[in-house]
């Protein structure tokens, strides 16, 4: 933490202030999930949304505009992170929701589950240095014309914490080329001024990938924890834009452009 400092929240002058409408969020809980309350707090208390927890045995997600798979250690991260959660009943319903164009956001373990489920390409391998890593990182916003990132400026660098042991994004060369070609990369680890240097990459991810979306553009996964960066007293508000973008999209029915 020492020596890293916030640039100040850029992008939306006040990402929260822009949020006017209300959407309905389902926040999934698998055995071992541990960030569901944090996500709920941000959605409900800070952004005044209608959000509730959904137990992993639920088979119907019809009533939600958006579904969030929060972080944690589903099934203890045993075998491979996300591998077992992927086979739980609620995932069928996540497929259905994705199919219908609902927004799906996977954070950290949620991202791992989405790749295991094939809703997002690639896989998250153990960190290159083999250690679990928690701390502040900077990520560069690659696209803003998506339901998840419209509250940011293109090239904006966000300060958001990570906390994971398996966040090292991998896809084979063809798949990776495809991901890049289609512009599916939304966030890359970078220096505070947006450079893609070796030291700015905390886990060895290919192409510095921190967050991607699916081809259809309604499913996103990211390793950083935006919900941990929504209040100045906790060190950053930069993560709020992800949720604000989603809410805007859901309530205004379109992607919202700032700049």
């Amino acid at each position, binding site marked *: 933490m020492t020596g890293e400092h916030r640039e100040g929240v850029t992008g939306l002058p006040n990402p929260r202030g822009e949020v006017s409408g209300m959407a309905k969020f389902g926040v999934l809980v698998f055995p071992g999930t541990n960030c569901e309350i944090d996500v709920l707090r941000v959605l409900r208390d800070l952004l005044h949304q209608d959000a509730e927890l959904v137990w992993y045995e639920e088979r119907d997600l019809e009533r939600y505009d958006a579904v969030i798979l929060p972080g944690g250690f589903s099934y203890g991260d045993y075998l491979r992170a996300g591998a077992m959660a992927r086979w739980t009943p609620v995932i069928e319903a996540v497929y259905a929701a994705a199919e219908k164009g609902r927004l799906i956001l996977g954070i950290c373990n949620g991202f791992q589950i989405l790749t295991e489920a094939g809703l997002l390409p690639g896989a998250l391998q153990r960190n290159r240095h083999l250690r679990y890593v928690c701390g502040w990182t900077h990520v560069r916003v690659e696209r803003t014309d998506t339901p998840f990132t419209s509250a940011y400026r293109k090239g904006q660098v966000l300060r958001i914490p990570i*906390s994971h042991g398996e966040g090292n994004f991998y896809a084979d060369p063809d798949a990776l080329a495809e991901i890049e070609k289609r512009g599916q990369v939304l966030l890359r680890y970078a220096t505070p001024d947006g450079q893609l240097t070796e030291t700015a990459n905390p886990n060895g991810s290919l192409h510095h990938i921190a967050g991607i979306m699916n081809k259809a553009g309604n499913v996103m996964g990211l390793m950083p924890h935006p919900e941990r960066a929504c209040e100045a007293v906790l060190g950053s508000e930069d993560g709020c834009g992800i949720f604000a973008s989603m809410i805007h999209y859901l309530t205004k029915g379109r992607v919202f452009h700032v700049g």
Partner: protein
Amino acid sequence: MSASLPLWAVLGLRQEEYLKICEDLGNEPSETVLRMYAVMWSEHCAYKHSKPVLRRLPTKGPHVLQGPGENAGVVDLGDGLALVFKIESHNHPSAIEPFQGAATAVGGILRDVIAMGARPVALLDSLRFGWPDEARQRYLLSGVVAGIGHYGNSMGVPTVGGEVYFDPAYSGNCLVNSMGLGLARREEIQRAIAQGPGNPILVVGARTGRDGIGGAAFASQELSGASEADRPAVQVGDPFMGKLLMEALHELYKAGGVVGVQDCGAGGLTSACVEMANRGGVGMEIDVLQVPRREEGMLPWEVMLSESQERMVVCLERGREAEAVRIFRKWGLEAAVIGVVTDDGVFRVKEGARVVAEVPVRSLADGAPEYTPDAREPAYLRPLRAFDFARLPEPEDYGDVLRKLIASPNIASRQWVYSQYDHHVRLGTVVGPGGDAALLRLPGTKKGVAVKIDGNGRYCYLNPRRGAAIAVAEAARNVVCVGAKPQAVTNNLNFGNPEKPEVYWQFVEAVEGMAEACRALGTPVTGGNVSFYNEFEGRPIYPTPTIGMVGVSPDVERHVQPGFKRPGDVIVLLGQPEGAHLGGSEYCWVIHGVVAGDAPELDLDLERRLQECVFAAIHQGIVTAAHDVAEGGLAVALAEMCIQALPEARGCRVTVPLGPGRADGQLFGETQSRVLVTVGREDVERLRNLALEHDVPIRLLGEVTADGRFRLAVLQPSPKEGAALGRSLIDLPVEALRREWQEGLERWLVPGGA
């Protein structure tokens, strides 16, 4: 194991203890009974050597809701909230299997907090290893840190602070102490009690296997090379199961009908059941056949003494069993009724219809004899205290000394350690690891909880009484430095074999010192843990009391951190203005290879005034940064404030007026009761007034600069009357210091350097 020894002796009981058991029972114990006694009367469970001494600690205060005796201590936070906290050691298991040993330490302390009805909100760890030039020490450190992360991260509990020290004294016996904090509404606090004859007793969580049988006894022996052969199967922690257990228990608490809960720790089911029954003044009957097992063919005593992890014992109101089972099943866990509360004060173990043990609860729980062994001041002390520091040459290049000190594994950044711990989860961490104390916000209020764990074994080695007092003072000082008021203490007393008079003397002295400091600072002790027999091949570790201090901040927005914030701010030293104390310093160890002298002096009254003054200054909003002076002394503290500064405030120019004593002692000595703060020029007067009001010495040292250089000069009295000579001693780029500090620990750990 010699065939000629009677079983009681093999199990580690003394003859007088065996005779007392026979007397309490009125006959000779069966094997099952004897084995239960051996565990319950082991040092680890019975505190035979420590109880009489621990009574000297102050344990009462207006905020204390629960002192020692339950699973954890509790203090009142106001607004209906209660803070639950406790510390535990897992030294021997970690020395054998660092990853699992440390992981299960975290699991254990979290279950203590959960058993109090609280939600765990934070963890801290206090670690001691031998010098990192040994591969074994690096292996232990890596394993322990990974193990702590493995459990805490998975549970979703942030590890917000801790400490790591290296000293050859811990080469054969590392220390792993883990502290847990939890929050509850006052009315949600649970007790570890069994009451109401007819009420059912359940074991919930994991199945019981043969792991860890004899763990308590193992912790009550010295380690040796031969320990490998006769140790119990290593316990493997299952944080996934631990998380499910936590969630299920909270659901159960909410459902109601819980009479009491206790974690199954050392001594397994026996200890949990007997202690619960003892607190309730009741008897209990357990049927081992009802205990869900992981292995086949377990004997009754194996079931009763297994230390399988992730289990709790619950006493419910009659009729609530089905609901409990349903809740645990929802979380994929076992919940089995294994017995019932009785009114006869007897602990009865059955295997089906057959009674295998019948013991008076009181005897098993409380009947162990207490020992007050001989205490003798160790012979090493005299020559060490008489050490002539004049023998040590004064440095030629102070900048070079500072670089070396800041890179010492005892001072350098601990980021390599805490980056492996999730310290953000739960959205409560306002100040995480890396500063002085951690600060957590309290949901729904402006308030916060500050917490720090501290203890300097080297000081205690040189002077256990003063060293322990310093540990309390320093922990409190750190808590104050983030803007909180110290409230209460939990502690872990890590010592060698108490049957050795020298070790026992250290123990008694340390407890006395801790008690004095806790009284002076108004921070009662609400609990703790004692870990004896920390020796390797006959050599005890440094006596190492670790202090876990909690404090309350009235307003988390008003917190400060060590890093400089603004160029032009004035750097002020509050507290002991002069001091050149070299004894026990990191400087003497790193630069001269010497551990000698006495621990630094401590004026507890000045300490209290200093802390009140710093607290007041922070809450008047005039302090921009604060940092206590600790290992490495004044120069290192200043350097740390530079290194952690905002980019635009990275530098300082200070002038230290030299008082009596050597210059190296004044710059690197570890004189106590000092805090460095920065304030804006316009606020210097207000700070002066506050200092005056609190009768705290104050000295302006210099200012924060923006030029990226660390400049330190001294003022020497000149031969001419009234004049002083300035002399620059250190002038270095902050970046150079930062690199040393950042890489100091990693260089040892990451192959090929940082």
